[in-house]
């Protein structure tokens, strides 16, 4: 066998092995999207009930709360960026980072100092490589976040917003995550989470069409302030949880798509390599035949000459 064919055969074998891996990853990601989507759905009742309760308190009382009051001249804004822990998901993480960077530029242009919080190893790696300061980071749960994870993330961020600006507290909180629109579309978005504005609260729950209903006057137990105190951090936690879940679903969808194109590409490569190998084999055979024919001709000529 010719050396050329051997090289082609070896490459075909290696590409086939790679294809098997990407195919497996594609299927794993596909099954996880469904799971992640189900988790998003399962968390919706809590989120919408909570939104309702927040709206009720905010409209039913005149209580002021640091998490709902706009600072007169905001000097510091916090950005919470959600990226993935693992790569091989196409442009998933870098798109989210790009959105965060754009937001950061916008906020800086508005004269605000930006404090960054990052979820996911990819985002952390991006910023540490550029030696940028991060206020806090969390890694290890990007593909299947639990409510406890959301709590762990939201805690320090809420604290930062509650702290006085003079003591390094933030006036605003923005969250950048990848919204799961459909299996094929995931868009990185930035949302302002805090301070909450009333119309934002009413507009946010997309699924509640009957938002026009008049909310009754509630009795607060123990008091409106205490309820709001307890309610708002939970509300932020649930928004963060929702963002984490959507990001997880998006990550799986992005990975599935990336792996699908990798598999397709491998198939294409195998096809063209097989063609090349066939051509090389045919060339070898042709050469061998012509050598034999040539050799036989030479022998015949030599014999004719000696006679």
């Amino acid at each position, binding site marked *: 066998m010719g050396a050329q064919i051997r090289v082609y055969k070896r490459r075909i074998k290696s590409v086939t092995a790679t294809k098997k891996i990407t195919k497996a990853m594609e299927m794993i990601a596909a099954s996880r999207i469904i799971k992640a989507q189900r988790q998003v759905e399962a*968390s919706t009742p809590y989120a919408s*009930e909570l939104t309702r309760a927040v709206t009720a308190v905010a409209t039913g009382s005149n209580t002021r709360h640091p998490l709902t009051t706009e600072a007169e001249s905001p000097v510091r804004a916090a950005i919470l960026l959600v990226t993935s822990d693992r790569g091989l998901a196409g442009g998933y993480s870098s798109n989210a980072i790009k959105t965060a960077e754009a937001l950061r530029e916008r906020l800086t242009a508005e004269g605000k100092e930006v404090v960054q919080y990052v979820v996911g190893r990819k985002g952390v790696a991006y910023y540490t490589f550029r030696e940028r300061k991060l206020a806090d980071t969390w890694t290890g749960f990007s593909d299947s976040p639990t*409510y406890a994870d959301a709590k762990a993330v939201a805690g320090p961020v809420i604290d930062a917003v509650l702290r006085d600006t003079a003591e390094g507290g933030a006036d605003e909180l923005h969250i950048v995550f990848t919204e799961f629109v459909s299996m094929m579309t995931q868009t990185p978005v930035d949302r302002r989470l805090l301070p909450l504005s009333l119309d934002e609260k009413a507009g946010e729950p997309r699924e509640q069409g009957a938002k026009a209903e008049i909310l009754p006057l*509630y009795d*607060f*137990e123990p008091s409106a302030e205490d309820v709001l105190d307890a309610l708002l951090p939970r509300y932020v936690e649930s928004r963060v949880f929702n963002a984490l879940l959507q990001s997880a679903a998006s990550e799986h969808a992005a990975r599935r798509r990336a792996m699908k194109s990798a598999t397709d590409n491998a198939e294409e490569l195998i096809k063209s390599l097989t063609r090349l190998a066939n051509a090389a084999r045919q060339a070898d055979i042709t050469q061998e035949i012509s050598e034999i024919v040539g050799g036989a001709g030479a022998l015949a000529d030599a014999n004719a000459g000696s006679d």
Partner: protein
Amino acid sequence: MAAELHVELVAADRSVWSGEATLVVARTTSGDIGVMPGHQPLLGVLESGPVTIRTTDGGTVLAAVHGGFISFADDKLSLLAEIAELAEEIDVARAERALERAKSETDASAERRAEVRLVAAAGKH
């Protein structure tokens, strides 16, 4: 219709129980509160504690709830909890182990959680 209220018990990551009830007793930060149909609109902060729901068919649903809110309006009651478990879902052995551990580590909140679980489970079994 006037004699029943619709209850939704939801945890952060799932809906735990929903149905019609005649009475719901839950523990708020200022004490136990019982809600019957026709109650004034209410919004309260819950403590870790057992929640008792008396259903319209005469049954009782017990759940352990850790932190959260109770909100009631228009004969619709929602119990929002970060963690909520129905009594029959609670693994008694595991809760007992958690209680032991919490006691030895003097983790007051974990101890309270384990106790609440056991109380809720005991009410059912």
